């Protein structure tokens, strides 16, 4: 029989990464975690949400999050030795990266890719954000390519532009791993298609169970928490909901932009 309840853990540390971006560190209790998998993070009496893992160390894990709504505000305000609950890991992560894998992350999406970025050739990581002060892991991955929408750090523009440059210049790229806003991921899929590269993306939906029971995270015919969150691009191509619709807490299907707005206030 299975046990799936929040394992209560003391916060080891909370670090500020960038503007409104924090990392919370707790003991590593994740058996056989594969980057791209996720965990459910519980703040007692507050709420529970899915997150990727941004630091995967032997003894501890880090979860990097942007302060948006009630939950992340609470989390950012917690202190060392406070208790949070972790359950998981859940879902299917990325395949093993090789030296010719490109890893491309936008915004908070970078966080669940970071453990993979540590494994690939430095210059094969592409990290983007709206602005310099929101850019993640600038110091952690010094040799990565950085972009900002406003040009305040790295190259001005979208991460996808660097991807296209690289794919058109390099022959040896085996596959592309990607996590970020769906509009970005959908662009990445297009680019990969053009260059005939395998592409894996990581989807995000509001979750309740995280283990394939409630149906809350459905995206077309895919159960994101269970059959994903990482999908090979061919498995989401033609999915009528990917980059278009997502479900809010009631289960109501709304345009992704409405969903993101709703999620940010939750």
């Amino acid at each position, binding site marked *: *029989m*299975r046990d799936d309840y*929040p394992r209560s853990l003391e916060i080891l540390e909370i670090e500020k990464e960038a503007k409104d971006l924090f990392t919370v560190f707790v003991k590593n209790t994740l058996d056989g975690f594969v980057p791209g998998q996720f965990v459910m993070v519980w703040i007692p*009496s507050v*709420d529970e949400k899915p997150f990727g893992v941004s630091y995967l160390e032997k003894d501890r894990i880090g979860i990097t999050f942007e302060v948006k709504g009630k939950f992340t505000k609470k989390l950012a305000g917690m202190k060392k030795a406070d208790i949070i609950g972790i359950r998981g890991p859940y879902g299917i992560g990325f395949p093993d990266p090789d030296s010719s894998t490109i890893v491309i992350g936008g915004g908070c999406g970078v966080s669940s890719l970071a453990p993979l970025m540590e494994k690939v050739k430095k210059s094969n990581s592409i990290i983007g954000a709206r602005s310099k002060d929101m850019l993640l892991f600038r110091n952690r991955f010094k040799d990565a390519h950085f972009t900002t929408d406003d040009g305040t750090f790295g190259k001005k523009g979208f991460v996808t532009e660097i991807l296209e440059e690289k794919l058109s210049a390099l022959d040896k790229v085996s596959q592309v791993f990607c996590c970020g806003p769906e509009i970005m991921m959908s662009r990445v899929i297009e680019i990969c298609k053009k260059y005939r590269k395998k592409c894996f993306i990581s989807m995000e939906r509001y979750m309740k169970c995280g*283990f394939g029971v*409630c149906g809350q995270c459905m995206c077309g015919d895919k159960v994101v928490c269970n059959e994903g969150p990482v999908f090979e691009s061919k498995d989401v191509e033609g999915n009528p909901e990917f980059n278009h619709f997502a479900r809010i*807490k*009631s*289960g109501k299907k709304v345009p992704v932009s409405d969903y993101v707005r709703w999620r940010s206030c939750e």
Partner: protein
Amino acid sequence: MITIKSDFLGMKLSNPLILASGIMGISVGSMKKIADNGAGAVTIKSISKEERLGHNNPTMFSFGDVFMNAVGYSNPGMIEAKKEFSDIDRIGVPVIGSVIGTKADDFVAVIEELGDIRFDAIEIPLSCPHTPGFGVLAGQGTPEAAYRITKAVRKATRLPIIIKLSANAPDLTIVAKAAEKAGADAINMGNTHGPGMRIDIDSGKPILDFKVGGISGPAITPVTVRCVYDIYESIKIPIIGTGGITTGRDAIEMMMAGALGLGVGTGIYYRGFDVFKKIANEIKDWMEKKGHLSLKEIIGVAHEG
């Protein structure tokens, strides 16, 4: 030839296993997946008149044989549901529409709004143990309320009506009889049990945000079997046994106690989406070993002798 085909309320089911409401019943896509994994029929997640956010997370967790949830009937409301379920034919197996309300009128309103959707039956849960305004917490499980709501619903639809009861009712057989008398075509026995609570000892807080939640999974099988056994002797309409069915063995027990249909929800958690195929095969293998040819030879036999 061994067959596990089942005739239930006029539905021709390839097997008696029915996806229980609230588990993966959120969309046509999710229910098609379950049908493709071998369910004989599926039930949608319960729909109310208005949109409901439900309780905050955590809404679900498990400890060994115990699965707990306090989803709190989150659903997009009947107007959205009408869109969501417009093309249920695509699912490929019979679909049961689950309808909830706080007053008898609400049930009727939802049934009417969803009137164009080609459901094969309507299920009315009177039995959720963790949602204020609904089910047990609203007193819908008394014989009087069961009679009143069933009567109202009976007038609102010509589809077969399934009334879903709670194992908690101290006067269970009386409730079942009241529903039968008011025109129910079948009883679903039943909803989650409890409610229960688990407390995280490090924070000192209940794990579920709503503090308490309904219990499902293997731990409740014995109580479900007993309830099915009890009501089988007092009503004539068929019974769906729901609660804890995880293996072929559980399914057979439930049929021996008197269930004609078999609801499976949390079984998905323990054995995957293909729990339906797995259980169906386990039933068939056992029938083969025992020389049974059809489910008729099994249903209710625990009452003999």
